């Protein structure tokens, strides 16, 4: 890219590489000294599983023990969607009629993907799965559907609400738990399972639509991203 060269020259890149080489060497040498049985928190997690409302340790860590991290991570994902919408606020591209094979495939695949996503979400409580995976699968399905012209992305308020749903519910639960117990994200009594389920399902929905938004905005020919990045280097500002 021509603009890139304007800021980072070849010598600078070489210097950067030379500077980073020792780091790489240190890293490689250090990998050998990772302890065979590293000290970790698995035992503690296992000990407190009973209090977490779920039986799968990963979900317990993500949604309960370190639920705060996850809340912020979902905010990060939301942010990605918001950023994509900010870049290209216009309507999405009109895709042509889908290929008949694709259309046929969609008819079979779409319901299956929705089912799979739902199962993965529910399974998260007791075995590997959860909101991120479910959202990813559902998102993939939505992308397929949009390629097939079945789903049409409309960057209006409805979409805004879908994108923010996960964060909103998570934050709402956090504030609610604060009001109930005086501690943020401390789910009162036996509500933990249901709180987690509410958060996970809404987060999955949001994640799916965030993925769709990202895909749609970044591929739509109307976006400023694709036009500007592929245009010739800009004229110098104000000669």
């Amino acid at each position, binding site marked *: 890219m021509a603009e890139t060269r304007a800021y980072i020259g070849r010598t600078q890149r070489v210097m950067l590489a030379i500077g980073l080489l020792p*780091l790489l060497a240190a890293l490689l040498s*250090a990998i050998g*000294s990772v302890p065979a049985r590293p000290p970790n928190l698995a035992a503690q997690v296992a000990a407190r599983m009973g209090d977490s409302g779920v039986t799968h340790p990963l979900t317990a860590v993500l949604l309960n023990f370190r639920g705060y991290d996850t809340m*912020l991570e979902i905010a990060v994902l939301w942010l990605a969607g918001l950023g994509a*919408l900010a870049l290209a606020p216009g309507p999405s591209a009109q895709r042509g009629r889908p290929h008949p094979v694709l259309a046929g495939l969609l008819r079979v695949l779409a319901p299956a993907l929705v089912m799979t996503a739902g199962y993965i979400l529910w399974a998260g409580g007791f075995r590997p799965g959860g909101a991120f995976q479910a959202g990813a699968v559902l998102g993939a399905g939505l992308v397929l559907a949009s390629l097939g012209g079945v789903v049409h992305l409309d960057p209006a308020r409805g979409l805004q609400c879908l994108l923010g749903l996960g964060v909103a519910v998570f934050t709402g639960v956090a504030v609610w738990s*604060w009001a109930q117990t005086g501690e943020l994200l*401390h789910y009162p009594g036996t509500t933990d399972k249901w709180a987690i389920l509410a958060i996970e399902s809404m987060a999955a929905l949001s994640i799916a639509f965030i993925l769709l938004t990202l895909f749609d905005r970044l591929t739509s020919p109307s976006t400023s991203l694709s036009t*500007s990045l592929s245009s010739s*280097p800009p004229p110098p500002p104000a000669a």
Partner: protein
Amino acid sequence: MPDAGFSSAWLAAPIAVPLLAAIGVALLSARLRAGVCALGAVGTAVASFVVLARVAAAGPLRHNLGGWGAPLGIDLFADGLSVLMLAMTAVLGCAISLYASGYFEHARERQSFWPIWFLLWTGLNALFLTADLFNFYVTLELIGISAVALVAMEGGPVALSAAVRYLFMAMLGSLAYMGGVALVYAQTGALDLALLEGRLGEGPLGQAALALLIVGLLAKTALFPLHLWLPPAHSSAPAPVSAALSALVVKASFYILLRTSFGAFSDNALAAVGPILGILGGLAVLWGSLQALTQDRLKLMIAYSTVAQVGYLFLLFPVAMPGAGDAAWQSKAWIAGIFHALSHAAAKGAMFMAAGAILHAVGRDDKNSLRGLGERMPVSVSALAVAGISIMALPPSGGFIAKWMLLVAAVRTGQWWWAPLMIGGGLLAAGYVFRMVKFAFYATPAHAPPLHAVPRRLEYTALVLALIALGLGLASVFPIAVAAIGAPFPENWFTEAL
């Protein structure tokens, strides 16, 4: 911690309020936007200052999120350093919000700016209120992604290519940091800083972890020679975003480094890293200043000035590290660095805001378009000049106090060679600031095109911030006393001084 009238859960308020504001402004109808924004900004600031007042009165606070407690859960933690950063963010945040409400009044960006901006604010507050290595990573992501989105928001090719470069650098930095955190966890099984005390950087594994952590953070702080992404990103963003980036965002990763290095680093590691950081900081001062001296565009000059000023921040490491000499003075160097961060935030915010107002009015920001602006936009030019005083570290500005304390500490601990660098850096700063400001003092050219009307709050917000940077020099005792709360140095070193 039962305490009449104050629960430690209030620590979450400065995080929750802007997050709720972001959600509200994105989900509610456009008619309510102005109200939600105002409420969000003021509410966040109030929450931040409540925490500040509490910590100032009762010492460091800790809150176990979800009631689990470290190491299993995540703790929110606030000491003097945290609340100072929180207060800095609150002041700048309110100023930026006010400024942006004028700057984007009729612009397309007014829809997308607000939720992203409040998420950025959430990320900053969350970062300053945590003490968990992995949670730092999450907040860094929140900050980094929102910063990139804000840079890209303007949509022009210059802004976009700057944003993409920024994104790559932020990603690489995150990746390096994340790798470091993974290695730390593999070695120690802990992520909370209090549990890691003095254990970072031991053995080859620890050293590699530390190297990754530091490189990641330096890339995000834009310390020379990892600064290349900063000038294009900071100069091509819309003015309120530039202000947020230079004043706050670069401080976030610096804060992590500051917090981890004094406390979690082992003494040997700090002694090894300190001089390197100092040398890089010194080079940044020289390189950034010289580059700023050759820029012909106001915003680029200010951006390069940030490269230089970030360098000053890192000079505290060699002076404050253990074994550097006179122990009582190490704590002063540490505080000087923090104070520099505060006054630079106010001054740089003011400069970018003033530059934004000028750009708004004139349509350009090359030095010749500044001619005669002293008469036509006196408030903005004054803001630029007054903020410049703090950047040049002339008295009585906050920048001067910071530099003086660092200078004295450096000489007292036997590292006098930082003195010529810092004094020379001040002269260079005077050079680049006046090189621009002097154009404003030319008489207005006869053929000067008329100015676009600028909302008054743009100019006055900049001026108020500049005056805060100046006034910090006369009222430095309170912030310094706050910084001493829970500082990683013996308490009597502070009390004797204050």
